[in-house]
């Protein structure tokens, strides 16, 4: 960033302080002024004098504009007749504000409690709404579906070949549009520095299927999708602003993408979000399918196009699914060579959201508890205030204040508190959602779409106002009903209010401690799982390993592909600092699996397995010194050698779990197996080595059998190249990428990461959930401490006379301390007992998030109980000591 740009960015931040409507109208022009000025007087942005002028100008503008905004708002506020409701209300409001200003501590406590509770709840709800509930940002999103091949054992719908797409488009009657998309990374050169951007090759119906069209210019017609179609491109608003400064003249210009020139014909609207289920996140340009490789296009067997369709209005999911199944059977019959294929569909919303609910719903439950605790706390504090004011209320009543008048006063107070707390909560929510978007787990779908919507903020304020009004009005009904005489006599200083009132307060403390122990137990279990996950022995050493994922264009001969990856690994091995290089199809912890079935002499099969053709096992092809690079230990036999290629005898390596399954407690090296998809003529495979188990699917998955084949005996176009260096893995990545682009500039790199980062990513959302729930648990605990402390402090202050009498009669101070502590701890203990019961049920829903601990883990539950109990006792200690240190003379003199 140049100095001028930096100054402009700083100025833009300063402008945020202006009233929104003023900013909306003038911000762009003010920024233009700023830029014009820095262009007209180079270097001026570096002078203090300039900034002094800017700051003076801003201070003046802020004063004037905010004042204008506020007075306008007030003037527009209609004030009905004199002496009537509005005036009375304003009077009540003034009284409330004045009386609260006399108790700033209490006010602060109530407001911060409401602010935290409402803010956290609104934040989480905004996220849940944005990710799970909000409709996708397309035209009639309910009718958009993902279409593709369905495969047993693989989730979701899979890609389809170009030829199958053509036939599906011709033959289907269910869709108004059926469009294809294929992600690619391409190097944009020409305007400015070359840059790798994410592109999607899409068919012309893509925009129609989503119902979103370019805001400027146009999309292309079907002709552009044919081979030799016109090379055109539609840009996202983001890249248009970034590279061309939003210049409308860009339409019609040509740009170079990976060596081909494309004509810019359209710009998508700023609000357009590319469908995450289809493209890689951050797709910035769309080009026609014409750019597909001619060879790829002609192969019916290779599926690489992801399809979306828009259902016709009269067609429902089921009938479309039936039609697709029929079309699949038809195509399999007409073109039998690529094998049987089944087509199906799934709503785009489901495909996009995936199982995000499993990590978001615990958060929603946790924040609900936190909000409940917050409400209880506010209720408790307001209740105390009402009893405190009993004397005042009675006095006002004597002086002729009607009951309605008294209730209205209290209601106004609740309303004001709720409003202020709600506004505070709204601020917390805005900050919270921003923080979530910035620090939330990157795998969370639709992260870009999460915003704080106006109606959520309004509902936050409404919730807060309702809490305030409700909990201030309940005691006020009781307060105004009580007999004046008793109130005046009691005077708010005799006993600790009435017995029912004390009971109500106790009930609130019970509920509060019950809710918070649930949260503390959940947080504890999640943290415990996280600790265990972090210490899991993965079976490999990710430190110092860099990963780069390559997809070689399909349709080339296995020899070509094999040679390409060999050359690539040789090239990377020559990078200074690289110690070992290898490649695999599926990285450990990637969650991807390839499965086949095999048979071996001596292997006993279940009936089901025997019917399906053998024992099921995950397999993967590895190349180079994969095991050495990843630090996977060789237990027996040998690893693969260069001679294990297409011409050599067929070999395989098994992991310990599979070795144990094949030859329990024996030597498996040298034994043979046949694969279920082998032809009769093929010789069996010889097992040449045993390696240690790795956590191949997930960190949680232990002891899954794995089978490794040498890459050259089962060539595939998608490989993850791993390299181990002396330093951190990330330091190798730039040189590795250079290496790839030097050989094939057009090759998309799907992933280039440090392996440790990859491992951390695999638990990122768990970590996030664990920390957020723990954060909520800590807040809940803090609120409970406040609640327990407040209740007891109040009770003690109300019982000063009684305690004074006791002390005067010779009661030992220690006994009083004990009695007060015991009473409070007993109340909390009841809450804990109830809470633990509830937690045992609640944590069952958390089981999918737990690892290595059961949902009733005694250590965690025990610790949680101890934590809450100690916290509550500590909170009681201060008021209890105060009770024991009452000076009998002083408290009796109060009489």
């Amino acid at each position, binding site marked *: 960033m140049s100095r001028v740009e930096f100054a402009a960015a700083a100025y833009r931040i300063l402008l945020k302080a*202006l009233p929104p409507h*003023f900013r909306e*109208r*003038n911000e*762009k*022009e*003010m*920024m*233009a*002024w*700023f*830029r*014009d*000025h820095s*262009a*007209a007087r180079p270097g001026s942005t570096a002078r203090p004098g300039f900034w002094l*002028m*800017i700051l*003076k*100008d*801003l*201070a*003046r*503008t*802020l*004063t*004037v*504009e905010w*004042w*204008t905004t506020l007075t306008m708002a007030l003037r527009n506020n209609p004030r009905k007749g004199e002496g009537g409701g509005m005036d009375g209300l304003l009077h009540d409001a003034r009284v409330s504000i004045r009386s609260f200003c006399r108790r700033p501590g209490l006010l602060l406590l109530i407001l911060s409690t409401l602010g935290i509770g409402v803010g956290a709840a609104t934040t989480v709800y905004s996220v849940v709404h944005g990710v799970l509930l909000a409709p996708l940002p397309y035209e009639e999103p309910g009718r958009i579906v993902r279409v593709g091949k369905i495969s047993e054992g693989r989730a979701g719908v899979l890609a389809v070949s170009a030829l199958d797409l053509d036939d599906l488009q011709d033959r289907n009657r269910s869709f108004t549009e059926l469009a294809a998309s294929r992600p690619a990374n391409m190097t944009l050169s020409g305007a400015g520095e070359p840059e790798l951007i994410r592109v999607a090759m899409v068919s012309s119906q893509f925009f129609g299927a989503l119902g979103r069209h370019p805001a400027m210019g146009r999309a292309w017609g079907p002709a552009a999708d044919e081979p030799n179609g016109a090379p055109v491109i539609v840009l996202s608003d983001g890249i248009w602003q970034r590279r061309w*400064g*939003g*210049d*409308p003249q860009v339409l019609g210009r040509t740009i170079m993408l990976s060596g081909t020139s494309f004509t810019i014909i359209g710009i998508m609207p700023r609000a357009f979000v590319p469908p995450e289920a289809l493209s890689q996140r951050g797709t910035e340009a769309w080009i026609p399918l014409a750019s597909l490789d001619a060879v790829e296009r002609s192969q019916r067997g290779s599926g690489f196009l992801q399809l979306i369709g828009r259902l016709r209005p009269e067609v429902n999911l089921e009938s479309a699914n039936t039609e697709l199944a029929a079309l699949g059977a038809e195509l399999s019959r007409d073109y039998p060579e690529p094998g049987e294929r089944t087509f199906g569909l799934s709503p785009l919303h489901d495909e996009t959201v995936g199982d995000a609910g499993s990590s978001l719903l615990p958060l929603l439950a946790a924040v609900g508890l936190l909000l409940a605790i917050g409400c209880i706390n506010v209720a408790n504090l307001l209740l105390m205030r009402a009893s405190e004011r009993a004397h005042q209320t009675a006095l006002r009543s004597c002086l002729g204040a009607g009951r309605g008048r008294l209730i209205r006063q209290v209601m106004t107070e609740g309303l004001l508190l709720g409003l202020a707390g709600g506004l505070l909560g709204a601020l917390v929510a805005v900050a919270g959602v921003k923080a979530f978007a910035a620090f939330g787990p990157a795998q969370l779908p639709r992260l870009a779409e999460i915003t704080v919507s106006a109606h959520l903020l309004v509902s936050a304020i409404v919730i807060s106002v309702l809490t305030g009004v409700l909990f201030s009005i309940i005691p006020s009904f009781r307060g105004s009903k009580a007999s004046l005489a008793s109130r005046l006599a009691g005077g708010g200083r005799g006993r600790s209010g009435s017995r029912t009132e004390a009971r109500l307060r106790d009930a609130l403390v019970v509920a509060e401690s019950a809710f918070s122990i649930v949260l503390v137990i959940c947080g504890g279990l999640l943290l415990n799982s996280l600790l265990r996950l972090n210490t899991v022995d993965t079976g490999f050493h990710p430190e110092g390993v860099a990963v780069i994922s390559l997809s070689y264009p399909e349709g080339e001969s296995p020899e070509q592909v094999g040679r390409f990856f060999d050359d690539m690994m040789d090239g990377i091995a020559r990078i200074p600092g690289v110690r070992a290089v290898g490649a695999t199809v599926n990285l450990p912890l990637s969650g991807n699996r390839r499965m086949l079935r095999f048979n071996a002499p001596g292997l006993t099969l279940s009936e089901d397995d025997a019917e399906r053709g053998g024992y099921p096992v995950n397999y993967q092809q590895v190349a180079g010194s994969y095991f050495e690079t990843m630090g996977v230990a060789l237990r027996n036999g040998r690893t693969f050698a260069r001679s294990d290629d297409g011409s050599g005898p067929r070999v395989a390596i098994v992991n310990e779990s599979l070795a144990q399954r094949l030859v329990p407690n024996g030597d498996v090296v040298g034994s043979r197996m046949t694969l279920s998809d082998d032809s009769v003529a093929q010789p069996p495979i010889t097992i040449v080595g045993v390696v240690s188990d790795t956590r191949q699917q997930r960190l949680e998955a232990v002891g899954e059998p794995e089978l490794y084949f040498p890459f050259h005996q089962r060539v595939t176009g998608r490989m993850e190249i791993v390299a181990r260096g002396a330093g951190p893995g990330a330091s190798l990545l730039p040189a590795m990428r250079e290496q790839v682009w030097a050989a094939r500039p057009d090759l998309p790199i799907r992933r280039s990461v440090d392996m440790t980062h990859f491992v951390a990513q695999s638990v990122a959302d768990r970590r996030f959930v664990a920390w957020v729930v723990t954060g909520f648990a800590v807040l809940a605990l803090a609120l409970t401490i406040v609640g327990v402390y407040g209740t007891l402090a109040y009770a003690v202050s109300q019982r000063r006379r009684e305690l004074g009498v006791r002390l005067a009669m010779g009661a030992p101070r220690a006994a009083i301390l004990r009695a007060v502590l015991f009473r409070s701890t007993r109340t909390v203990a009841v809450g804990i007992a109830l809470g633990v019961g509830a937690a045992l049920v609640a944590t069952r829903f958390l089981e999918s998030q737990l690892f290595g601990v059961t949902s009733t883990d005694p250590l965690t539950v025990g610790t949680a109980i101890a934590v809450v109990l100690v916290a509550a006792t500590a909170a009681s200690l201060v008021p209890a000591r105060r009770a024991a240190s009452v000076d009998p003379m002083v408290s009796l003199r109060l009489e």
Partner: protein
Amino acid sequence: MLHLSTDATIDGVKKSKVYIRPFRSVLREAPVSAQRSDDERPDYLTPVVYHTLLALSQEPKHGYGISQEVSEVTEGRVTMGPGTLYGTLQRLNEKGWVRRTEQVDSAAPHAERRRYYELTRTGRAVLRDEARRLARAAELARERAVLRGS
């Protein structure tokens, strides 16, 4: 509440000293004229408003152009930062004294953001009244020989 005035020029007479005024007097300046009612002509214009109108008297200008010219003709005694400038323009626009034109500067790098402003008929009339008032005031000063010796 007190406010540190940054506005060092009143009716073209430079006051080099920064002085302190009650906050309210600054706020009273917020409306562009001394008169609160919007439909009547004001008694006098603030220097910022007068010079803004003056800058637009011959041809439409964009924001930076206005502040440039004001700075030039007043020899730097009236400086308008962007906030003052666009705040003033917004209010003048609301009063119907100036309006945004559809013209954009296509040569400029931030083409679509550079808006041009022009005087309306009312704006021109207000400017003329104020110029007359100032001329009369200057005339008065000359008659009383205030300017002699300067």
